[in-house]
């Protein structure tokens, strides 16, 4: 789909130029960057925090961080939207850690079902199309893990759960949870690096 790729490239280049201008203190560029990316980043904050007021506070922190750190963006490392999305996810987890977890009472059910956390079936944003191959690779490697390992790693990613929380919610000793997830991570990495 060359047309889609062109659109994705144009989008990426535009975001990159907005980030560069933001790093130079261009407020108008920063506002445009906000308008182009805030829905995506708010979706991420909301997914992790699962509470709107907190997600709004996290998103505010995200853009304050972007304003300060735009100069640190390294175009060789990640696409602009991926870089921004990672800032959003990080800030959302910071907020999650600052608040007291209220989810301890929600049991983890996947431990026995073995089902993977479904990924939202939303249409893919064109500016993220570059990651499609990476996505396939990640899925292939995840398939090498047990269903439970896959599910718990995915849940940790999307909900930002700590080891303690997973242990509590699945009524499993902390040490077992930790070594079990670490084995999954090592196996995943070995596969991804092949």
């Amino acid at each position, binding site marked *: 789909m060359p047309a889609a790729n062109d659109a994705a490239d144009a989008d990426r280049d535009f975001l990159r130029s907005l980030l560069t201008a933001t790093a130079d203190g261009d407020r108008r560029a920063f506002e445009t960057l906000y308008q182009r990316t805030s829905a995506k980043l708010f979706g*991420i904050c909301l997914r992790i925090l699962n509470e709107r007021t907190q997600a709004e506070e996290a998103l505010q922190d995200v853009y304050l961080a972007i304003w300060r750190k735009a100069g640190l963006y390294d175009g060789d490392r990640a696409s602009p939207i991926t870089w921004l999305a990672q800032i959003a996810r990080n800030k959302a987890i910071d907020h999650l850690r600052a608040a007291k977890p209220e989810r301890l009472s929600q049991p983890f059910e996947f431990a026995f079902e073995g089902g993977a956390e479904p990924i939202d079936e939303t249409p893919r944003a064109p500016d993220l199309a570059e990651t499609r191959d990476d996505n396939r690779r990640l899925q292939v490697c995840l398939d090498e893990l047990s269903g439970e390992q896959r599910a718990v790693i995915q849940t940790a990613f999307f909900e930002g759960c700590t080891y303690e929380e997973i242990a509590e919610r699945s009524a499993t000793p902390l040490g077992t949870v*930790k070594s079990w997830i670490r084995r999954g991570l090592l196996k995943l*990495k070995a596969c991804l690096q092949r």
Partner: protein
Amino acid sequence: MNARTPNLPPVPDSDDLIAAEFVLGLLDADARRDAQARFERDAAFAAMVASWEAYFAPWLEGIAPVDAPAALWTRIRDTLWAHELPARSATADSLWNRLSFWRGLAGGGFAVAAASLAALMVVVAQRPPSVRTPTPVAVQPPPVSAATPMVVSLRHNDGTMAYTATVDPDTGVITLIPAFMPEDKRVPELWLIPADGVPRSLGVVARDHAQRLVIPSQIRRDAKVDTLFAVSMEPSGGSPTGQPTGPVIAKGSLIRL
């Protein structure tokens, strides 16, 4: 997992695993802070973090976008630049100004509002810091303007107070303090209703703690004496249509003190 996995020997710590755990969010608050500090000063560790981030990046793609509330951009902009607003009088920040503000409030015809505001202000002042929003980047406190403060009491239909709020007409900063809000699985959303009668959302608001909002600049001039504010109950996440969809449970008009 306990039924299916026998006791596993521990997997020893390694920088790479800690990087992965940091990226996934598995670390508790203390360990996360340590990892964050290392990320900032240890290039080798930062590179490990970056590669784990890259491994999981495709998952970020699957997260659906959700429109952020319109007021949020104004809040971000004001946090960064509101201190540059002109026309602050030299005495605006003085304690005397604030005292006379509160004395005027108490001495006027609004003793009930003042009492509940003052009582709630104490609660606000005593709320422990860092529970909700440690915002290390918010370097500048919201400006105190010299304009006469305005207040609004949002009352339930039976006359009981739902929220009280002070509104700074210059900066658009609203300090909103809940009084009585019954339990409800829906969420309260605050609306400003200008002369044209079309409600403008100021966002979903808390029912159990004070919060500060900023009126979007495009409608800030509509916040004047007699402007109506209302609270409706909306589905989690706020009105899906941009207009109130649930019952209006409280309302009140802006008055100048």
